[in-house]
């Protein structure tokens, strides 16, 4: 429009207002786009809410009893509404933690290598392999562990084997996430540290990693939450047990996905009851982890 009006008499524009009201066409387009985007959001929300409502509605009956959290299914008949799943909760948590104990240090070290040291072919290959690993389905990871550690090396089925498979699933997530967090640390901080005569390894340990800590921890917890629900490794690599087994290195051990799977073959309504309860329990544990992740990231976030 007439933009040069104001030069000689800025108070009185000669050609009427420069800025016109929104045209009807644009108003309609704006509304249409708003409705479309909102609709898409609601549609995406439907399955989530549906799953949550169903699981909570059917599972709440099981988990409100104290026995659910404090007893196993040892000696409980298939048709009886008794016992609890603490053996499976223990199994799920210990398997995920054992996996984390291996995957987190290796993953963070690999990410440090990729960001701080990696140049040339080895770094490219590593990065490529991490991408491939990220695409490996959990059943393949489970079968690989079975083939390598049980068939070839003569190990026995145990919770630890499950953890090894979970390591394969956790590693790419931890590496990629940590890598991203490390790349967010500005180079200026590294330079500031070098300029003080601090060697590179110490710069990484004391400056770079602490700066990236909150994002890294969040990523690790999310990776943990992801592998807790994995079913394929527990089906292939460990037998189900009705009772508690504290030893992850030998014997059968239950976990929440495995318990659900085994109760599927229970024709009694009590089996259904336990499946929904276990599903809700798993969702709760994962939710607690996610909440923990956001609390950690809030508290260790860099304060300004």
């Amino acid at each position, binding site marked *: 429009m007439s933009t040069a009006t104001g030069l000689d008499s800025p108070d009185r524009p000669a050609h009427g207002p420069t800025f016109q009201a929104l045209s009807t066409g644009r108003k309609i387009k704006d509304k249409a786009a708003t409705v479309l985007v909102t609709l898409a959001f609601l549609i995406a929300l439907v399955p989530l809410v549906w799953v949550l409502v169903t699981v909570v509605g059917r599972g709440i009956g099981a988990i409100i009893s104290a026995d659910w959290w404090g007893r196993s299914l040892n000696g409980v008949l298939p048709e009886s509404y008794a016992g609890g799943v603490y053996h499976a909760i223990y199994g799920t948590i210990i398997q995920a933690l054992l996996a984390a104990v291996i995957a987190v240090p290796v993953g963070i070290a690999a990410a440090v290598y990729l960001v701080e040291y990696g140049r040339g072919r080895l770094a490219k290959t590593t990065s490529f392999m991490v991408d491939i690993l990220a695409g490996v389905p959990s059943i393949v990871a489970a079968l690989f562990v079975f083939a390598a550690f049980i068939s070839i090396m003569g190990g026995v089925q145990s919770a630890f084997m499950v953890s090894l498979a979970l390591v394969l699933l956790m590693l790419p997530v931890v590496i990629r996430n940590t890598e991203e967090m490390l790349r967010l640390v500005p180079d200026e901080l590294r*330079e500031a540290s070098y300029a*003080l005569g601090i060697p590179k390894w110490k710069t990484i340990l004391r400056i770079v990693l602490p700066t990236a800590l909150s994002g890294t921890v969040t990523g690790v917890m999310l990776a943990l939450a992801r592998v807790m629900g994995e079913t394929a490794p527990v089906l292939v690599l460990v037998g189900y047990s009705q009772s508690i087994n504290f030893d992850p290195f030998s014997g059968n051990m239950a976990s929440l996905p495995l318990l659900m799977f085994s109760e599927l073959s229970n024709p009694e309504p009590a089996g259904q009851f336990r499946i929904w309860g276990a599903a809700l329990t798993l969702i709760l544990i994962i939710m607690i982890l996610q909440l923990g992740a956001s609390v950690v990231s809030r508290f260790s976030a*860099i*304060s300004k």
Partner: protein
Amino acid sequence: MAKRLDLKDVDIYYGDFHAVAGVNLSVAPRSVTSFIGPSGCGKSTVLRTLNRMHEEIPGARVEGEVLLDGEDIYNRSSDAVAVRKTIGMVFQRPNPFPTMSIRDNVVAGLKLSGVRDKKKLDEVCEASLRGANLWKEVSGRLDKPGGGLSGGQQQRLCIARAIAVAPDVLLMDEPCSALDPISTLAIEDLIADLKKEYTIVIVTHNMQQAARVSDQTAFFNLEATGKPGKLVEIDDTEKIFSNPTEQATEDYISGRFG
């Protein structure tokens, strides 16, 4: 403490790119030398070769000699980490460590080099902050994060951090370019104080600043894009700004240049 710096036939490369050619200059102890010149002429590059920060960039290398009191810092046996302890650096943008408190920022260099003695660390912290003219402003909140200070305070915090490791030479890469005039004045006053104890080399785009703070001024220029930057002239600041030998220098300082 303060030591002299001599550059002899220094050539700097980034991979195949010849960034700076044939620099010869000397910096006397307890003096301020400023590097001026248009963007891309290599003055920051030269500065970064003086404490071997340059080699952090992949493919970068240096030919010629950089002598600190006669000792070549690029000598095969000398460790870049040791060099950087002796030759400190302050950067263009203030960069305090975000995870650390003000106190930890100041003593970071000592702490990460293994000094544990809390009493000594506190002493150094106070002395360095006083040296950087920041003590009065932050003495009551040493445990607060360094990122909470204003830009000018952050830059003085970075200077305190740099002098806490007691270097012989202090390099400053456009330390005031991100600061307002009042903070700039504070830093310039500080440079005048620091001169009593340190050898200072400062890169600046601000010619008035070069005229105000430095004893000698070096003018760098680029003949054409793609060609290496060159040291055109180095002389007493007064002479450079009143009666330079080279026509290019006069064109640049009088604003006739590009």
